[in-house]
């Protein structure tokens, strides 16, 4: 595959809305005039069980629909994090929801308590997937925020557009704060070294 290909994997437990999240990301990529393929893998249960969505975004043609060398990984459960993080690129972006992921296999992860923060802000975890999209958008810019917002409005149930867009913006804010804290911790570490 060419250099312009980005492979994204959203993994968690069934019911967290990650396949919906994958569909929204894919639709946003189309709005950004890119080629895209989205696939999914899930168990027979309606809720619980491992669930993952994979999105491949490219400028050119995409042949194989599954991710094989992942650029961006979002884990929203410990099981998903353990099972599906084996083929992440060394310089890949690793996002974890620390509400459910307690053991993180890398120190360079974007670690945010996505579900807990969503519950605190909106009273329920229902919007965690959209908050996660906000985090992902801010952390990697693979699709534009404008396209993602349009795709969210198109795909979420009618009447919930406004609150979902709020959730998205909230996710972006969480990512920015995490980045800031990370940078500060870095400079403190450097200062302590010297």
């Amino acid at each position, binding site marked *: 595959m060419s250099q312009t290909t980005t492979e994204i994997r959203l993994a968690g437990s069934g019911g967290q809305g990650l396949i919906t999240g994958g569909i929204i990301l894919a639709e946003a990529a189309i709005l950004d005039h890119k080629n*895209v*393929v*989205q*696939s999914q893998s*899930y*168990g027979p249960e309606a809720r619980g069980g491992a669930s993952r969505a994979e999105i491949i975004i490219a400028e050119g043609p*995409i042949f*194989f629909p599954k991710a094989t060398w992942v650029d961006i990984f979002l884990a929203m459960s410990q099981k998903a994090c353990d099972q599906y993080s084996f083929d992440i690129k060394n310089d890949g972006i690793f996002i974890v929801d620390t509400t459910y992921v307690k053991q993180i296999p890398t120190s360079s992860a974007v670690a945010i308590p996505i579900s807990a923060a969503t519950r605190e802000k909106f009273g329920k975890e229902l919007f965690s997937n959209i908050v996660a999209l906000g985090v992902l958008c801010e952390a990697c810019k693979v699709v534009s925020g404008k396209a993602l917002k349009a795709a969210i409005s198109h795909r979420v149930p009618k009447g919930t557009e406004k609150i979902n867009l709020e959730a998205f913006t909230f996710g972006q804010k969480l990512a920015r704060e995490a980045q800031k804290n990370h940078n500060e911790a870095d400079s403190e570490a450097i200062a302590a070294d010297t």
Partner: protein
Amino acid sequence: MNKKSSYRLLQGNEAVAEGALAAGINFFAGYPITPSTEVAEILADRLPADGGKFIQMEDEIGSIAAIIGASIGGCKALTATSGPGFSLMQENLGFACLAEIPLVIVNVMRGGPSTGMPTSPSQGDVMQARWGTHGDHPIIVLSPSSVEEAFHYTIKAVNLAEKYRNPVILLMDEVIAHMRARVSLPPESMVERINRVHPNMPPEWYLPYERSATGVAPMASFGDGYRYHITGLVHDAKGYPTASPNECRDNIRGLFTKIERGFREICLVDYEQMEDAEHAIVAYGSMVLSARSALEQLRESNCKVGLIKLGTLWPFPRFALEQYLPQLKTILIPELNMGQIYREILRVNAGKAVIEKLNRVNGTLITPSELVKTVKGLIR
């Protein structure tokens, strides 16, 4: 969605539903089953709005019975199911073959046998699609390998069913059914629609199974004033059961002749990089996706490999292989089963090239890198 762009994000099953509507399907009876449910879900919403009928039946036996009845009544009828449901449909599928009733069954294959792996991909029903119902019978089986093809092959399936008065099976695997891709569908005015030939003689002259020059008899709809008999027994030109050896022969041989006459039109095959190929991958369904990706890598390392993509599985498009046999040293057949089309390739090859299979039955895809490794091993 962005109005300026004609591109949409479409799922394989959605593409089937869109294709069914574009082809003029106006009757669906079915029972939801993973991984085909979206077809029923979408048509339940869209068909009634379009003036068509949607019925959720009590099971898959009832589902195929209902679409047989609808087709006899003049509707273009389709159902969608998966392995367990497809098994239940086999008896009535044979009835539709013998009574020559146009209909389309979408079978989205999942891991089997029995309840198997409901959400995982498989290509285990290839032989069932051919021989699942008893007795000698012809069948048409198409297998799309992309979301876009799922749309076009559904239209083709409906058209072939109408033209040949025969059941057509659209055999998809879970990956094609559930993947979403960026596609652009043609406007309805660009879609070819074929309708069955209706009789134009006075009702008293009509023979429902008297074959025209094309090998297919005109089909009257019940209620059109043509009174005739339909049976699952082997029958004469009037449709009545017969034990006359000549009439029985004509009935059964006639079923085969009509499909043989249309063989080239029915067979959908594509060739990629076969001109100078010394080695070929023969693939269908999701295995085409793995093969294409492998081909790109193999060509980069100067391996003369090509792809023969089977869009039609039955009748088996043997010419697709035969024409390349003189130039081929090895042929690899990757399948998500224990080797079903592999046996057909062996039969057609008749010992000329080295034939190898690559099989997987664990509910995951064969990856491009596995294919690359296997092909390189074969070449060496």
